[in-house]
């Protein structure tokens, strides 16, 4: 097999960025052997500077000490690095602002204009400007892949592109946020109040110090927007969503539902462009517990297809991001 060398620039070196590099370090040999692709990281960008090496960075050295202690550290800004560093793919992994899509939106559009392909886990730019990004990618003849934006490790976009490629998606709905699913599962299993379940989720690292993004349904809604655009061909943004979170759900309500064969889940309904708590029958495929995510696709040929998996976690999410890098690499 002829080996193809691919250079990537990583933008954002937080939990997900580190997770991607750790998995890449672990799987580099496997990817070379199975796919004939040698992935080299030519730059990693952070807010205050970047490490750059056109020969490819040593991942051990990058991971073992703070980025600004690396011998290749410079104060070059991300935009400059995206445009001027030798690379084929920009991997955008910054946290995003759901109202503006920034800073990821600018990074992605800059990369596309510079004729770089993009792989990303950043939801916000797609929730705000999906059409603008994809139109720009078509115009500049580059690939933009975003599997990790919805469902973490669960293959959704790639499943539709490959295995279900002859299918039209007629509707899709599911549990798209692991934190709320964990909280509701705890309320159901232990009979605790929402606040206690959230605190426990925070202690276990499932919930952020400010859990409102998850609890109020914002994170799920951003994912619904992406699915509506990508799977149902809509042209919608976050502002089109109707969003209700789980703050008003009481243990008594969950207990009543449970006694009558239901459980309460925060469900993203793509056709309705809605996120809201829903009663789900205990024998429904979406009744997954803990921090799992699940998505039910209603397709015209294959019928109902349900996929379940880990919706968060840096290692799990890196699975989707690196799969996108490999897919783009094979197309080069």
């Amino acid at each position, binding site marked *: 097999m002829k080996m193809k060398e691919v250079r990537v620039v990583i933008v954002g070196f937080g939990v997900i960025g580190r997770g991607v590099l750790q998995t890449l370090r672990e799987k580099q040999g496997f990817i070379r052997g199975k796919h004939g692709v040698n992935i080299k990281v030519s730059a990693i960008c952070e807010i205050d500077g970047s490490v750059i090496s056109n020969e490819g960075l040593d991942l051990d050295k990058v991971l073992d000490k703070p980025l600004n202690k690396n011998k290749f550290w410079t104060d070059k800004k991300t935009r400059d690095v995206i445009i001027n560093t030798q690379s084929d793919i920009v991997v955008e992994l910054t946290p995003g602002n759901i109202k503006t899509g920034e800073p990821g939106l600018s990074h992605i559009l800059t990369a596309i204009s510079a004729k770089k392909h993009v792989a990303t886990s950043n939801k916000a730019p797609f929730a705000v400007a999906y059409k603008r990004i994809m139109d720009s990618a078509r115009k500049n003849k580059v690939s933009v892949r975003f599997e990790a934006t919805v469902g973490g490790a669960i293959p959704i976009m790639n499943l539709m592109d490959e295995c279900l490629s002859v299918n039209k998606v007629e509707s899709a*709905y599911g549990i798209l946020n692991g934190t709320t699913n964990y909280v509701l599962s705890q309320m159901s299993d232990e009979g605790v109040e929402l606040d206690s379940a959230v605190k426990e989720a925070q202690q276990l690292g499932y919930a952020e110090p400010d859990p409102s993004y998850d609890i109020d349904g914002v994170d799920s809604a951003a994912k619904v927007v992406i699915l509506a655009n990508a799977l149902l061909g809509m042209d919608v943004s976050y502002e089109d969503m109707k969003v*209700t979170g789980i703050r*008003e*759900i*009481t243990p*008594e*309500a969950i*207990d*009543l*539902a449970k*006694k*009558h064969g*239901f459980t*309460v889940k925060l*469900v993203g309904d793509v056709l309705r462009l809605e996120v*809201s*708590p*829903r*009663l*789900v*029958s205990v024998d*429904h495929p*979406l009744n997954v517990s803990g921090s799992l995510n699940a998505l039910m696709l209603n397709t015209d040929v294959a019928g109902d297809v349900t996929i379940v998996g880990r919706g968060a976690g840096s290692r799990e999410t890196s699975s989707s991001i690196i799969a996108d890098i490999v897919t783009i690499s094979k197309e080069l």
Partner: protein
Amino acid sequence: MKVDLELGLRDVPGSLISALSPISDLGGNIQSVVHQRGAGGLVGVKVVFKIMDLESLEVISNALVKKKIHVQKIQVDGRKYYTKRTLSFLFIGHVIDTDIRDTIDKINEVGLVSDIIVNMSDPEAKSAVIMLVEFDDRKYKKIMTVINSISREKDLTVVESIE
């Protein structure tokens, strides 16, 4: 036009007469009535009748709903006219104190609240109520408009079931 009407009647005296009266009141010509005892205390009844127009049938259908008669299926000249849909709604808030009778009446104007389950752990605290609502499949949007309006007016959280 020929109408095939499938009903679920409570097994009590007078229920069949009550179900048939809207048909005869609107000039329907009843051709056959077949009934079969089913599960859950309901008696399945299939009524075949002839009627002048769809407007009359709509009035009959609404009259049956008002009488809380379970209309399971209507076919007109062999084609589906009405399909029953059932959804569960979980209401959270001061459901009893905000006049639950009024809530039920408002829903019954479009569909039928066929079962209610209440959880009230403390008279001062928010209660939780599950209502089973039956309605004509074509009236889904109308049912949701009514329920969302009740939710806003009475400050109740509504959780709809997934089918």
